[in-house]
């Protein structure tokens, strides 16, 4: 068994939105008892709709936010509290890529300044060494010296994401968390950035937590994947296997929505009912109002996670009772 770079142990995170000085606190449970582990050098994809808590999970894994309960282990030790000195030093080892690279970059500083900034912050090397390192890193992500002097607004979307990637990787981190890194890019550019990410992963032995709603990209980049629905992991397993034989009814619906090349047409499962709202979480299994195979107990009892024979874990009453039935359908 390979060593885990990061491990989430039953983390939960609620947001209390207080309105005004006397406002009532309205707790919104964003992440609920999520456990995940990412092996060294591997990519784990986290899939779900918006509001499923996948971004929050990523932020908790990175230590940007503290979980209410549960703990995050990075290389076997718990993360220090956010915004402490120890926490800031740790940033060098774990980095993040964002959905909107233009927002993630300071519009007033040149690309070179921003790629060099982690070296400035952590005070590594002399000024000229920092510049050289930053230029080399820019080269590694496919940007040249003329891009180095540009402002973010002068670059294309793909180039901006490359700059963000260079900034994240210049400290040679071990863990990279990508929050929808390509969903804001054109499809043709998406492939380039994903390929670049995979090349760099091999080169730098990166472990990647890849947050996305795009199953095509997930299939290409990840070895394992986890599916989230309203703050919970409903299914988790080997990516290829999971996409070929989804067990959970929600995963089935997701997979059925992806067009498949080669003519093997599947029946599209259309979900009905309200789209998920974390502020009004249904009782029992959160998916039951939209589930095509829901049964009475689903509305009251939350399904426990069961591990199937092939290492797949699923949280569904229907699967608990008849795992073979679910598998046979695919």
């Amino acid at each position, binding site marked *: 068994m390979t060593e885990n770079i990061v491990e989430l142990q039953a983390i939960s995170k609620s947001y209390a939105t207080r*309105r*005004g*000085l*006397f*406002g*009532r606190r*309205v707790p919104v449970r964003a992440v609920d008892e999520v456990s995940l582990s990412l092996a060294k050098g591997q990519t784990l994809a986290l899939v779900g709709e918006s509001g499923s808590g996948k971004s929050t999970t990523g932020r908790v894994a990175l230590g940007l936010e503290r979980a209410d309960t549960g703990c995050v282990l990075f290389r076997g030790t718990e993360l220090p509290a956010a915004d402490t000195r120890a926490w800031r030093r740790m940033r060098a080892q774990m980095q993040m890529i964002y959905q909107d690279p233009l927002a993630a970059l300071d519009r007033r500083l040149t690309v070179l300044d921003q790629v060099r900034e982690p070296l400035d912050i952590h005070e590594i090397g002399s000024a000229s060494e920092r510049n050289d390192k930053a230029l080399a890193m820019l080269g590694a992500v496919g940007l040249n010296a003329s891009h180095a002097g540009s402002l973010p607004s002068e670059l294309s979307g793909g180039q901006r994401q490359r700059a963000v990637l260079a900034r994240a990787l210049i400290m040679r981190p071990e863990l990279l968390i990508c929050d929808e890194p390509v969903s804001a890019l054109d499809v043709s550019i998406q492939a380039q950035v994903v390929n670049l990410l995979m090349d760099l992963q091999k080169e730098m032995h990166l472990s990647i937590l890849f947050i996305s709603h795009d199953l095509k990209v997930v299939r290409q980049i990840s070895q394992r994947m986890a599916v989230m629905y309203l703050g919970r992991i409903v299914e988790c397993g080997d990516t290829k296997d999971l996409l070929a034989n989804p067990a959970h009814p929600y995963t089935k619906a997701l997979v059925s929505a992806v067009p498949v090349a080669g003519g093997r047409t599947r029946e599209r499962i259309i979900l009905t009912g309200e789209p998920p709202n974390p502020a009004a979480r249904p009782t029992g299994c959160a998916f039951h109002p939209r589930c095509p195979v829901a049964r009475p107990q689903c509305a009251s009892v939350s399904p426990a996670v069961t591990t199937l024979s092939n290492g797949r874990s699923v949280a569904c009453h229907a699967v608990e009772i008849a795992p073979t039935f679910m598998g046979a359908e695919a």
Partner: protein
Amino acid sequence: MFRYFIIRILRALLTVALVVTFAFIVLRLSGDPAYSIMGDNASPEALAAFRKEWGLDQPLWNQYLHYFAAIVHGELGQSMRGGGPALDLVLSRIPATLMLTLPALLMKLAIGIPAGIYAALHRDSLIDRAVMVTAVAGYSVPSFVLGLALVQLLAIWLAWLPTGGAGSPLHLILPIVTLGVGGAAVLARFVRSAMLEVLGQPYIRTANAKGIPWTAVVRDHALPNAAIPTVTIVGFMVGNLIAGSVVVESVFSWPGVGNLLVVSVAARDLSVVQCILLLVAAAMVLSNLVVDFLYGFLDPRLSNDNTAGRH
């Protein structure tokens, strides 16, 4: 909805408490209140008696509570100059001030709102330009300059009106006009920009595209939405009724609250100043509360619990 109002009332009370605290802190920071209120010439016995009466020999926290209790009971001290209770003195001046500020408020509303709406609906027209120029000028001319210019023109050169003082309805004209013109300009500018903001919204374009007549779009969609921010500034003007004419009263020697305030500040008649401060705060808080309630009706989104918050 109910919850929204309760929160607003609590906030209002808290604000009043904040002003009282502010007055207490300022009073303490400014030196020994016995000296400040009794004057430097008071005898040591009188000072000691004063300290005992006001609990100044007690710990600060106790003093704060006493101070609070006294204010809740309406005990706002004696006027050093006049001798009588400060509150009575201030209350006796309020009618005179309202004689200026109420008509001035009506004038602001009667001129400012239509002018602002008209300017917004006919953007870049001659009238819009005129309104904007007047508004910017109204912003830049302090009320004492406007007042003195009017006095020079109408009272000294033309001798149509009295230069100042009180007595006849003629005495009212210049102060009211001085107050009203500046405020009308401010209001017109505000209403204009609120209207323009609303007119640029997608729902106005949608209503327009649906073929609803323009007058109906303005009446049913633009005006109610532009009214929401306008209510705030009008509320501020209402809250300012009892003390919004400090400078103008001073220019025209008008015997109102503002004049009393200036004289009391110059003479360091602290209980009177404190009394006016608290009354103004109460008026402001009250008008803010009314504004908040109006908001609750004008903007249903705000009274919804999920979004009840700042605006």
